[in-house]
């Protein structure tokens, strides 16, 4: 293929992404190698279109989540100093074990009460239990992590049992649950980057809206505002803001008290 030819142009033409396709069309008509590359691209695009995207089966998904949970949980309680080190820096690792214990207690309770199937809602199960201050903080701070890393049983039956416990908890008239606890996610300053990452993840997934009223409104570009969420960092109220487009938002975290920028400058 002739090196002076713009192969990117040819590839873009094949994908139909050019605003003005005339130069690409002329290039393809005048250059056999380019025409061949164009055909190559069409062939690949057709193959991609016809190809089924690989997906996890339900069983694989359950096992995967369970194994990740087990690894995280096992490493946390295990004697290996190395593992204690890597997880000791992350807030949800420190809290995950406690959440798992709470979930297990509720699951056993559900079995004893005779439950039925349904989706597991860890927030609901934890809401049913009497809480110490620490447990309350754990539940609030790990809502997202627990949602992602719900310990799943290796077989569907056990999962259903656990889920039944959650259902029963709700039917038993569990109090307000997540809505009151969610409001303030508590974390410490060293964990800010990962909390920001998690916030970004939820924003791009369209899971976070704008909590109103939010602090520091004068400091915030409300036209570009995508999401606003309160949290608590080392006991201080902070606000997470996401701006721009949902695919690639930017994040700013402001301290509520004086509107100072905690992230990205913090």
């Amino acid at each position, binding site marked *: *293929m002739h090196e002076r030819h713009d*192969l*990117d142009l040819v*590839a873009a033409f094949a994908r139909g992404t050019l605003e003005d396709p005339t130069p690409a069309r002329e290039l393809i008509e005048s250059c056999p190698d380019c025409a*061949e*590359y164009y*055909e*190559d*691209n069409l*062939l*690949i*695009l057709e*193959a*991609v279109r*016809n*190809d089924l*995207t*690989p*997906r*996890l089966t339900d069983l*694989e*998904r359950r*096992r*995967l*989540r369970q*194994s*990740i949970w087990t*690894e*995280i949980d096992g490493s946390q309680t295990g004697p290996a100093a190395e593992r204690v080190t*890597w*997880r000791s*820096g*992350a807030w*949800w*690792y420190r809290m995950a074990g406690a959440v798992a214990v709470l979930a297990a207690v509720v699951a056993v309770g559900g079995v004893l009460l005779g439950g039925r199937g349904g989706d597991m809602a860890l927030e609901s199960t934890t809401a049913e239990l009497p809480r110490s201050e620490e447990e309350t903080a754990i539940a609030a701070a790990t809502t997202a992590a627990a949602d*992602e*890393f719900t310990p799943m049983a290796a077989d569907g039956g056990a999962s259903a049992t656990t889920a039944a416990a959650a259902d029963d908890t709700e039917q038993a008239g569990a109090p307000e649950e997540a809505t009151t606890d969610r409001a303030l996610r508590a974390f410490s300053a*060293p*964990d800010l*980057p*990962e909390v*920001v*990452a*998690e916030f*970004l*993840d939820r924003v*791009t*997934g369209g899971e976070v809206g704008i909590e109103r009223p939010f602090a520091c409104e004068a400091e915030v570009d409300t036209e570009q505002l995508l999401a606003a969420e309160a949290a608590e960092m080392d006991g201080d109220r902070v606000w997470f803001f996401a701006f721009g487009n949902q*695919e*690639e938002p930017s*994040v700013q975290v402001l301290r509520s008290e004086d509107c100072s920028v905690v*992230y*990205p400058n913090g």
Partner: protein
Amino acid sequence: MRRHEDRVFAVCLRIMRNRESALDAVQETFLTVFRKADQFRGDSQFSTWLYRVAVNTCYDLLRRMKRRPADPLPEGYEPPDRRVDAALSSVELRPGLTTALASLSEEFRTTLVLADVEGLPIGEVAEILQVAQGTVKSRLHRARKELARILGNREAWG
């Protein structure tokens, strides 16, 4: 994790070419992400970082597998279909995308999977693979030629 696990799995499966190995890679990827969450600075998209971890994890696993040729094959291991070569001589039998991708080198396969299958822009692929954009373009062009040759069951051009 729920949001990303299928896409990470798809990428890993296409790089690893084996379901069990891909599942191992996905598990290791998410564990790494949780272990190293504090290293994510938010200056790139989270998904870009996640893909980078996934690709590096796959490469690591492939290297480990190569270093241990005497190890028993994982359960469910599907060896590359040797009939692919024979199929190339027949216009009637064209391999599917997965089989054709499996015939590419790791570098080409990964680049092509990220750019053409996952549809990521060149800049993001470069960031994931931690190479220059020119390198990505070069790999991509050569990978496309090679893949098209396999898919189209044509002779390679000079």
